């Protein structure tokens, strides 16, 4: 090792800073990461956020609860239905509004369809980040079917604003059930193709196995959640821990892995797609009859006090914390965003790895930037 040391003293190497973002293909949105690099090795990652900060929490303090729901669409736009559902559930629990089973089942089916659409988009972009550009089109081909289902029933494809306080905006369209069944039959044939194309590919395995390892203790200490945390063995699925809507009437398995590397995070999401499909299958055939909306007062006021509602979105558990002083708009409304919590682990994951690994790690955390900046 003698000359190694000799060379190290003679050749003066210097670390340099590289701004990855805010306009960069791998950051999936507008976020900047200041990398301290030694050649291609990363010494330190510091995410700089706030490029898309609209201060939704300040807006929510000036609008009524009904109007606050439509603002949550723009939080994590890939799981907009679950965000709406979170605020709706909170207000219903706080104001004591009882919703019938039909609404619960519709909300659960819509939530699982949103999770499927979000995971499909994640898979498509994951392939593109590691270099396989065709996965983008296969992922979007399947996601398009879900978007048509949403467009037909809720009226819009991404920011649906479908869940309201006391129910859902429209009743299910008459060929909703047929479309969902066609989609499930189609996607059951296509998901194994996802595995053949990317999961079993040796180049992809080499790019993701053993990269960005997080132990269960680290994940808990960082407060991480969602599939990213479940890949390290931390059972944090709110659908299991605090079941809401129709999740207690459905039996599904919480996917857990133990390796905690990038491939484990990838595998967890692929298996979650299978679980979501089985949940939809269990519910789609026996949607109970009933009103799609319960009668509610025109202006809804919450009693004094503070309320917390947690919902499992595609990225993790979204916490809605409201301090209410009895007026028609919340005194303080805080969104505990899952992607913001998952950002804590990014530095530990990528110190000592290469730029290409940072792109893979960032893509397996499945970050949606508006969810971070709010």
């Amino acid at each position: 090792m003698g000359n190694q040391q000799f060379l190290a003293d003679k050749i003066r190497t210097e670390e340099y800073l590289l701004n990855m973002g805010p306009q960069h293909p791998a950051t999936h949105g507008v976020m900047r990461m200041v990398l301290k690099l030694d050649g291609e090795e990363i010494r330190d990652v510091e995410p700089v956020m706030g490029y898309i900060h609209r201060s939704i929490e300040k807006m929510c303090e000036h609008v009524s609860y009904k109007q606050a729901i439509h603002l949550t669409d723009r939080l994590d736009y890939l799981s907009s239905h679950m965000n709406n559902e979170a605020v709706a559930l909170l207000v219903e629990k706080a104001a004591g509004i009882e919703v019938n089973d039909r609404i619960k089942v519709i909300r659960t089916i819509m939530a699982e369809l949103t999770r499927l659409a979000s995971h499909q988009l994640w898979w498509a972009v994951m392939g593109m980040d590691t270099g396989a550009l065709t996965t983008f089109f296969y992922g979007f081909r399947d996601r398009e079917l879900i978007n048509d289902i949403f467009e037909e029933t809720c009226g819009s494809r991404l920011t649906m604003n479908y869940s309201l306080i006391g129910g859902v905006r429209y009743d299910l369209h008459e060929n909703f059930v047929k479309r969902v069944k066609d989609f499930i039959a189609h996607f059951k044939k296509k998901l194994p193709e996802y595995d053949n194309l990317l999961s079993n590919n040796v180049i992809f395995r080499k790019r993701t196995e053993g990269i960005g390892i997080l132990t269960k203790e680290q994940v808990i200490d960082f407060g991480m959640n969602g599939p990213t945390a479940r890949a390290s063995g931390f059972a944090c699925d709110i659908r299991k821990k605090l079941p809401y809507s129709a999740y207690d009437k459905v039996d599904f398995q919480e996917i857990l892995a133990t390796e905690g590397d990038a491939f484990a995070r990838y595998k967890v999401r692929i298996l979650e797609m299978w679980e979501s499909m089985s949940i939809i299958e269990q519910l789609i055939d026996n949607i109970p009859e009933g009103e799609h909306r319960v009668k509610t007062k025109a202006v809804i006021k919450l009693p004094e006090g503070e309320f917390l509602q947690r919902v499992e979105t595609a990225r993790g558990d979204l916490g809605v914390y409201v301090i209410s002083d009895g007026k028609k708009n919340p005194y303080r409304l805080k969104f505990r965003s899952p992607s913001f919590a998952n950002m804590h682990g990014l530095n530990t994951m990528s110190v000592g790895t290469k730029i290409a690994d940072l792109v893979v790690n960032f893509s397996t955390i499945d970050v949606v930037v508006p969810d971070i900046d709010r």
Partner: protein
Amino acid sequence: MSYFGDIANATKTLLTGMKVTGKYFFVNFFTRKDVITVEYPDNIDTLKMFDRFRGEVVMYHDENNQHRCDACTMCELACPNGSIEIVWDKAINEETGKPKKFLEKHIYHLEMCTMCGLCIEACPADAIQWGQNFHHSTRDRASLTKVLNQPGSSFIPGYKNPKK
């Protein structure tokens, strides 16, 4: 020796990957039946959106150019983004002789609307509903501020919402 083992395994996984893309290439090389491209500008006349699609807010006018809006400004209050302005005026109603509000202009700022649908829900008379047109791109911003009630239109006298 695992040296050759993982080479063989590697080529096997690479070939299965190529089999998937190859299937899509050769199966519909001539039929092109799986193609998902929608040639948007060309299919503009045959393109029909779903009936619940939220293109823009429009006001319902019946055959003799009359609408149901009696300027109660419920939609203006319900809108979270302040994209609806109602310009109304008072006039003496002939039969009852009492002053009655009537709608002059229902100004709808399309560029501020987030398509949340709270105005359509709040309207007691179902005067406004969803239009399916989504071609909103224009050259100047002024044309995005639309007046929903057509010129020369008036309120249907004595209209009561059957549902309420």
